[in-house]
């Protein structure tokens, strides 16, 4: 910049246009490092143990349930004719949906230069990975003969039988595994500079070694930064279509079939919107308490909460629109079977499930129009949980309600889950929280370097004129 710039006075920003800083209280880069790394370094807080032990027990329950189901048969669940898919696929789609917010935040918002993402992206990405892990369990074990799962992969074999490439389940295999791989890589690449921070701060030999190993010899040199940012950008570019493709493809499991209530072209966009909706719901559920317990209010600010509430509101409204459009189309199609399928959702034996979904997904998020509500963390927290309950019911509505009464009334039946269904589902929470708690205890749950990049200190044009970006 030319030196004469100092001569002109800085333009004063009108109060109402002033941006709320992404890190409040004018925290310095050093404070950010200390605070974030401190979560992993300090004494294990009591609340962590209080959360971790039950989670671990639940994860053990999951393990037992899986062992029981695999050894005994799918019959331990409530699935039957005609509801051949039930909680297994509901939970799969639900967890996959939750796994959407992370990559959306890290990739799409990165490409769109939404700087507020930095405060939440690391935790959200971790959530994504763990959610996809939970999701991945279900399609793998819901089949009748788990030990032949490898039939789904295109492995050359002596019988020359290939998978059936027309089947959406086949597409799922590719979509989900690609998504998981890219999300994991993206997350790990983003972690590298922060792992180096952890390495440099580590006191014990083991920590030094492990953080050192995983930080891949990061020195913070310009060359490293340059390569890192290119890699990050490329991965963001790669992940972006995946965010849209995974849930689109999951939705094709239904849309491609001819079951009334499934056979709908609206599914791909509607599933993606629903997934983002539930993903943000889960991010809020996790971060609202964590920012308080880990004293991260200055990094995950009320502005972050506010923005995420707005995203939830927007996607919730898209989902609501889709629900209503589905109803309209089923009427407009003139097909008595389609009409019946939707009427059966509204008034049938499982109407409570439908209205639960409508209430949680369409009506409740509308409360976020109010700024007061967006600022009330208790209400935000409760709504975020209800959003996820609603999204679970959305999958219940689609899968169970469509299947339990289809074309021939002789097949109609009422589905009830078994205790194993319920415990398996609860068990996945155990796995999820176990992994998440381990993550936040051992890895920086905030992207330290990125957050620093969005502080006023990092902006050379601010009055503070602080750091020239990057690493401290």
């Amino acid at each position, binding site marked *: 910049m030319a030196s004469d710039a100092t001569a002109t006075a800085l333009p004063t920003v009108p109060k109402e246009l002033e941006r709320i800083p992404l890190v409040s209280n004018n925290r310095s880069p050093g404070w950010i490092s200390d605070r974030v790394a401190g979560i992993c370094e300090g004494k294990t807080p009591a609340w962590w143990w209080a959360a971790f032990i039950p989670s671990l027990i639940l994860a053990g329950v999951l393990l037992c349930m899986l062992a*029981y189901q695999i*050894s*005994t*048969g*799918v*019959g331990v669940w*409530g*699935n*039957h*004719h*005609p*509801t*051949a*898919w039930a909680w297994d696929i509901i939970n799969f789609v639900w967890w996959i949906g939750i796994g959407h917010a992370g990559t959306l935040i890290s990739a799409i918002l990165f490409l769109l230069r939404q700087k507020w993402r930095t405060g939440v992206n690391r935790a959200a990405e971790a959530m994504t990975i763990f959610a996809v892990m939970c999701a991945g369990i279900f399609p793998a074990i*819901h*089949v*009748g*003969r*788990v030990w*032949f*799962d490898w*039939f*789904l992969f295109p492995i050359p074999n002596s019988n020359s*039988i*290939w*998978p*059936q490439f*027309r*089947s*959406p*389940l*086949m597409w799922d*295999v590719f979509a989900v595994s690609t998504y998981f791989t890219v999300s994991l890589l993206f997350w790990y690449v983003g972690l590298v500079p922060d792992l180096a921070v952890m390495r440099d701060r580590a006191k014990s030999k083991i920590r030094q070694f492990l953080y050192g190993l995983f930080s891949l010899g990061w020195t913070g040199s310009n060359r490293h930064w340059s390569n890192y940012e290119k890699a990050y950008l490329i991965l963001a570019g790669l992940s972006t279509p995946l965010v849209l493709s995974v849930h689109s493809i999951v939705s094709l*499991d239904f849309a*491609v*079939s*001819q*079951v009334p209530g499934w056979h709908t072209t609206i599914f791909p966009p509607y599933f993606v919107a629903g997934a983002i909706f539930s993903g943000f719901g889960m991010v809020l559920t996790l971060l609202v308490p964590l920012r308080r317990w880990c004293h991260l209010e200055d990094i995950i600010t009320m502005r972050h909460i506010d923005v995420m509430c707005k995203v939830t509101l927007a996607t919730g409204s898209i989902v609501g629109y889709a629900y209503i459009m589905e109803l309209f189309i089923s009427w407009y199609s003139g*097909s*008595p079977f389609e*009409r*019946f399928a939707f*009427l*059966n959702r509204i*008034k*049938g*034996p499982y109407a409570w499930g439908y209205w639960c979904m409508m209430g949680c997904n369409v009506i409740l998020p509308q409360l976020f129009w109010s700024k007061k509500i967006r600022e009330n963390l208790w209400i935000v927290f409760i709504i975020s949980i209800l959003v996820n309950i609603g999204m679970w019911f959305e999958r219940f509505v689609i899968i169970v309600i469509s*299947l339990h*009464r*289809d*074309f*021939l*009334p*002789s*097949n*109609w*039946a*009422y589905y009830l889950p078994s205790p194993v269904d319920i415990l398996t589902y609860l068990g996945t929470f155990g796995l999820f929280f176990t992994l998440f708690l381990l993550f936040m205890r051992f890895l920086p749950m905030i992207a330290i370097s990125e957050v620093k990049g969005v502080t006023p200190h990092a902006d050379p044009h601010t009055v503070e004129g602080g750091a020239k970006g990057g690493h401290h």
Partner: protein
Amino acid sequence: MSKTIPPTCPEPATGRTYWRSLDQVSDTPEFREWLHREFPAGASELTDPVTRRHFVKIMSASFALAGVGLGLTGCRKPEEKVEPFGKQPEGYVHGVASYYATAMPTRRGAIPLVAKSHDGRPVKVEGNALHPDSNGGTDRFAQASLLNLYDPDRATKFVKGSSVTTAQAAQDFLAELSVKFTKNKGASLAFLVEPSNSPSRDRLAALVKGVMPSMGWFTHDPVDSGVHAAAASEFFGQAVTPTFRFDKADVIVSLDCDFLGSEEEVHNNIRRFSSGRRIEKPEDKLNRLYVAEGLMTLTGANADHRKRMPSSAVIKGASVIAATVGAGVGSAADLSGEDAKWFVECAKDLLANKGASLVVAGAGQPLAVHALAYAINAALGNIGKTIEFSAGASTGGTIQQLAKALDAGAVDTLVILGGNPGNTAPAELNWAAAQRKAKTVVRLSYFEQDETSAACDWQIPAAHYLESWGDARTTDGTLVPIQPLIAPLFGGMTEIEILARIAGSSVVGAYEIVRETFAGFVSGDVEGAWRKFLHDGFLAKSAAKTVSVSLKSSAVSAALSSAKATNGLEVVIRPDYSVDDGRFNNNGWMQELPDPITKFTWDNAVLVSRKTATDLGVANNDVVKITVNGRSVEGPIWVQPGQADGVLGVTLGYGRTKTGRVGTGTGFNAYTIRTSDSLHIATGAKVEKTGKTYPLSCTQEHWSMEGRAIIREANLEQFKEHPDFAKSMNLHEPPKPAGEQGVWPKPLYPNPLDAVKPSAHHQWGMSVDLNACVGCSACVIACQSENNIPIVGKDQVRRGREMQWLRLDRYYTTDKERFKPRAGAWYMPPRDEEQQYQSWIDEVQVVTQPMMCQHCESAPCESVCPVNATAHDNEGLNVMAYNRCVGTRYCSNNCPYKVRRFNFFDYNKRPIDQLYKGPFGKRKEDEWDLLKMAKNPEVTVRMRGVMEKCTFCLQRIESAKISAKVKAGAGTFDKIPTDSFTTACAQACPAGAIVFGNVADPNSKVSKLKAQSRDYSVLEFLLTKPRLTYLARVRNPNKAMPDYYEAPLSLQEYESKMGNPFESHGGGHEAGHEAAPAGHAAEKGAH
């Protein structure tokens, strides 16, 4: 049926012997060792004494059989010596099934059968189509009887008191009896037998009577099936047996007679009845069935007009008919109003069809109703035309008389041959105690443990009919052989063997006895006739002569005056559709067969009408206590649509206190309230709620078709006016592109089947005539037997996991007025448990549809399977590769017919008496050993986690193909001869409603049926192009009847919902769509 081509003769044993090495010549231990290593399985089998003995025991008899039988005469060498294969018998090919003619004895006759044997194991029974009175169909019991052979709870030991003894000891004891009672002329010796018309048994009974003239001979028939003959004998003054010729009757009136369901000779009745229901063109004649009944039965389900009235009130209707037709008895004043009109119009229709009509009274009806029925038939000139009579036989004493003799201490030794009187005897006889009054009770029993066995001194295991020699007469009087396919698995004996020993006869072998009896029926070349008899399975021209009879009006009026007045709630007691009188109680196939009407499995229930349930303040599954005649029983309530008010329907055969592993804990025992004077209808019952509930396992929970065009029906008039009415109910297909005369453009992804169709030898298809099908369910069991379908148990059925590949969908339909509230766009069918409170279920019509894999040409299941486990073959079959299936169940979700079945647990390996022991549960050895033998070796036994479904009996197609190819030899194989084989369901169907064949062959039966105007496919608008199509049902109601409807109720429901299908001809309710159905038909006709 496919006859296997006899293979070429194996190499003769004569000729030179070659050796492989010097070691072999010297037969050193080293060589033996080497041989062992080289051929470990076979070598070990022959040297290990234990397995070898087992092998010999099970297989040898039948191997000897196969040796002489195959391809020759089907007879058996009289030598009883059995040896293992030292040398393979000539003509025997391992793995190729052989067939033997035999027969299954029933209460009043026998069902001629051809039994299929694989390596000495009987694996399937089929009707003997050669028999003059058979079309190759059977009833469901014959199909299921195979499983009884392999029942692990069979009696396997000779028991004296409570200790096991030997067969020799038992035979010695019988010889002692013979000596003892020959001396005292049979005084205080009594026999209790089941009804049978076996000439050998009759002959031996006469032999016993000859040496022991004072012995007592008593017959016990739990369901009292001889009532038709007894009534006829009484009213015609001579011992006669009636045969009802439903095929010759144009108008049939059933007075509470379930001749298509629970009566005797159901398979023959169905065949005869449905021959009058088969209709090709609108001009064809159709018979008409009127039914007045209390319970909803299979017969009522097939009625053109059905009057629901308490069974005890049916006599009034009969009386009105009798008076109207001028039978000289009855009174038109017995009923009034609508009820009277119903019977009067019915009588008028009968009068218009004199000599071609038939009135039948139910076996459960009192003698007075039979009297009226015979009087009406006599007045209509039906005697000798639609009812034929042949000479009857005397039956001996009754169980009541025997009980009296026992109580009086007049019986020293009681010989019980078959049956289970401990369970089935009338309650007031207090049988268990009565039986114990005999000093010695000898029993021939089929089961190890039952209600009778506790009070027996000697128990002799009975042989199954597939392992014993015997003879019987079918109801037309034709002599049929009962020929064993296997030596008795547990060394059981037959009743003729026991009788022969007691008679002191020198000939005690069953084979010799039967042979001797047979010799009495033929003259000349006995050996030749005997061979032919065994080969054909019947003695030609041995049918009974019809006798002419005339009604004795004095007997009729005597019976009428004895009619009792009735009042209050009545209990109607029937044999069960699944377990009969209890004899199939331990048969898993029958226990799991959904009752054709209620669709229950594993249980019976107290059936009541909606109104009665409301009056009693009870609902489904409430356990009630019924008290009648001072006796009571507890059972769960079930509201049965179409049942008469004030009637409690219960069935026999359940609630056994002592039975095998399968039957234990099923249902409640209706025998406990059944006394001699009210065997079928007991009036004055009281019902109390117990406050308990009991879960019932039902395979079809929803009752209504909800106006959907699934089963399509029209009245005969409508059919005449709109011969293609079935197709007018098609939902419109996706619009075809304009400007190309409705021709579909070439699809983006062409169906590979279309490309291979022209070059394939066959294209398989099936047609099910809904007009001929009565819903008897024989096909379900035939399929289960043929295809190794496991049973899953009550708990699993309740969870909706039954495995039967073929099911019968049964819907109740109601009229337009009552359906109207449900026709609106916003109507939602109620939850299944609320159906019982809806008033429309009072008056219903029943429709039934066999539903199995439709073998869609463009199958929705195939494209969604991620592993290619289900695919199409070039002959149009949708095939399953079980080995490839991982069990995602996606195919089931995408199947609009939901005909795929998933093996949720390892149902084949699961112990039958418990739910599932978990991963380490093992089936008991004895169970598994026997059940393995029942499996058809040509069909894979599927493991858990695999999807399975109807294959159109692929194994039969393949074996027919192999036979045809062998026959063609070096010549060119073109195709299997037209209609030379069929599927198991089609073969078992007594109505001939299921027809399978090559749709590419215009001469095949199935192609001709599919060309009929009634042909339609279910859910055609999905464009799945099923290979299984249905022929729509046509009803033939009488316009004059008070309950006449212009359209069948299902059509009325459809109309309420979708509009009149005949107005906008073409099913689509849009203009410009007229061409669609015609085009569709043409397209169908083309393949």
